[in-house]
């Protein structure tokens, strides 16, 4: 497994400390997010093997295992405000579902964002009768993911088909869980108010090479922050892989 990891993740990323702004070496960014299921099978095995190989990703937007992992995400976006808490992401009544069981993982995805008040968010995140979303990218305001430490939150988003969240800022436990599970890539915006300039359904692209977020429908571009401290952990493939890489724990049994 170590060999596979290194062949995909070459060159090894440099530590993207917060002071190295505004541009990280491109090599770093190209490794930061790998497509599902290819490297995610590896990533999943090292940290969260919720996907037995027979389960294929739902949305067509996931890249197939091929030459280089994509560093861009493209598709429709779903726009949210500030302080979207974990109860809105995945209401507590669904927490009886255990994320490490494949069928329950899928069910969790079907309830993603079912806690959003319909008066504020009339467009359903998941069409009734389906169990995954047509919005692979979330645009949000400040303090996304506040509230509970439940890992079900990023897991539900990932299971529903979300690839990346682009927010002004994150609550710390949600951010940490996103990185640890690899379910969604938590990206931060450089500036405030971007979510007010986007509408649910806009076609967008997230480009991690250039650190830009492009809203094609509105014809606007916004700057993203480099991943920062979390980079090496994501590069390694999650907390378990990182620990093995740095010698903290021995290779998996």
């Amino acid at each position, binding site marked *: 497994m170590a060999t596979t990891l290194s062949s995909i993740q070459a060159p090894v990323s440099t530590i993207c400390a917060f002071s190295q702004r505004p541009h990280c070496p491109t090599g770093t960014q190209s490794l930061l997010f790998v497509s599902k299921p290819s490297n995610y099978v590896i990533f999943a095995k090292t940290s969260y093997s919720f996907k037995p190989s027979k389960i294929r990703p739902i949305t067509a937007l996931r890249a197939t295992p091929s030459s280089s992992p994509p560093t861009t995400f493209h598709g429709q976006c779903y726009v949210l405000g500030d302080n979207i808490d974990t109860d809105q992401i995945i209401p507590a009544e669904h927490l009886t579902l255990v994320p490490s069981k494949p069928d329950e993982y899928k069910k969790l995805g079907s309830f993603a964002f079912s806690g959003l008040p319909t008066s504020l968010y009339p467009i359903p995140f998941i069409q009734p009768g389906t169990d995954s979303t047509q919005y692979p990218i979330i645009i949000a305001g400040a*303090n996304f993911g506040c509230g*509970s430490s439940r890992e079900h939150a990023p897991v539900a988003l990932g299971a529903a088909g979300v690839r990346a969240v682009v927010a002004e800022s994150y*609550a710390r436990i949600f951010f940490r869980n996103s990185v640890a599970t690899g379910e969604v890539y938590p990206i*931060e915006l450089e500036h*405030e108010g971007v979510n007010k300039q986007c509408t649910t359904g806009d076609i967008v692209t997230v480009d991690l090479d250039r650190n830009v977020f492009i809203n094609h429908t509105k014809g606007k571009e916004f700057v993203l922050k480099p*991943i920062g401290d979390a980079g090496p*952990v994501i590069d390694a493939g999650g907390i378990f892989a990182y620990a093995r890489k740095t010698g903290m724990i021995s290779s998996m049994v």
Partner: protein
Amino acid sequence: MTCGTALLSLSHWLLVLGISSLPHPLPEISSARASLFRVPTHHRHTLPSPSFSSNPSTPLHSCKNCKRIFSDYIILYSLPPVLLMAATIVPAHAAFFGAKKEIGARASFSPSISAHRCRKHALNKVLAVMSPTQPSRAPSTTGSVKHGMTMTEKILAKSSDRSKLEPGENIWVNIDVLMTHDVCGPGTIGIFKKEFGKNAKVWDREKIVIIPDHYIFTSDERANRNVDIIRDFALEQNIKYFYDIKDLSNFKVNPDYKGVCHVALAQEGHCRPGEVLLGTDSHTCNAGAFGQFATGIGNTDAGFVMGTGKLLLKVPPTMQFVLDGEMPHYLLAKDLILQIIGEITVAGATYKSMEFVGSTVESLNMEERMTLCNMVVEAGGKNGVVPPDETTFKYLEGKTSLNYEPVYSDESAKFISEYRFDVSKLEPVVAKPHSPDNRALARECKDVKIDRVYIGSCTGGKTEDFMAAAKVFLASGKKVKVPTFLVPATQKVWMDLYSLPVPGSGGKTCSQIFEEAGCDTPASPSCGACLGGPRDTYARMNEPMVCVSTTNRNFPGRMGHKEGQIYLASPYTAAASALTGYVTDPREFL
């Protein structure tokens, strides 16, 4: 603010940021931003550019638009890149802003001019409402300046075998206790087995505490199955502390069952000063009341700890909250923490530690201190701490046989900010729907008609909380006007309700007073409806209604129905509101 000005004031920003070291080579999962918090405003407050004079005696600035006055806090906003870059080239021993002395020179702080609900949003603009006192020499010339550590830093240093460390460092920490419950336990166990192998053993069978508490008294099959999963694991691993429940129809016949994990951890002596406690629940920060580092983590991190007994943590900077003044008889710790969260907002303490000191804090008993630390996460905080003292040690007597070593912040410790409150001037507050920082005075909400009252959860379902509610009912002598649900946190609390006399009642117990007031019978101890739960959960909000609750969060749908409206309040306020049928200031009765 131009780059030039920014660089000129570099030493100021170092003081403000408390940066004293280069980025540590071992990174950690965290937001890349410097500390920041923001509040939705109705207009952008325009405050003058920070004064870079060395005169700290101009603490008040007024917004050009609304003339509102902002007082002497240090507010950090994310710095422009040039400052971040410049910050790293300063020697590792830049002097820190020594908060205590300077702010202490000011008169006691009046909350009426705090006005931190509205704050300037502007990104990439640094705003210090009070310029820090300058050292007599510029930081770059001082050479190696010894500075102390805060409590949180010391605990993490001790647990990572380091003699010294600083905020921002990423370190591997040895964990003293790992807690999980029925909601996150199964997922954690799944990850543990997948990563370490089907036959792997946990790192220490005595350091894991498994407490079913969330979805217990329900007919939901998956919920019941989840308790079975953690039981199987506890048996397989010979886990020493597993507070099992098998007979759901009668909690009393389950001798091991405790109830709400955070209260059980305290009552069973698992919280000890100086230690590191992690739990798969956001309110694990509750245990900080014992002077330990306690925070919530997800399943993956917990699975990691289960196998290794360690976790990679980033050292948070500490915000200090000095609470002085005699506690008015109508206030409780819940009012204090709601006041603070309303002050700094739900992201005010993101990635930071909150340290609570002062004469008021010292006067609080352990359960009140727990209430204070419990809601640290509602401000985004990583952990909360209260310095341990005689109150702490007395509480622990007879509860634990393990030795512990309390630590305290050094005199010269650096805090990233300091907030002072004159508690004697505070009034009962509530958090209106739908955010814990949507603070309002209880008396200003007296026209809000309510449909029910809920007294329970780790935040407001402890013995002291029920005693407080009973006091209000006793003082009134009348019956409640709305359904009033009582959910004791643990078996012990439940027993206290039926056995302990309420002071001033002539020997009546809480349960008797509650019955006379027409409240619902105290329910089986668990997390109950604090977070909604399965549909058949007792007191769950299944229709839109208005509820005053002693719980910890009021985001949309928190207690069940998305259109439900939850007013977070102290047990005094909750009981007073039950008596009138409206949100009510407890001074009506006390």
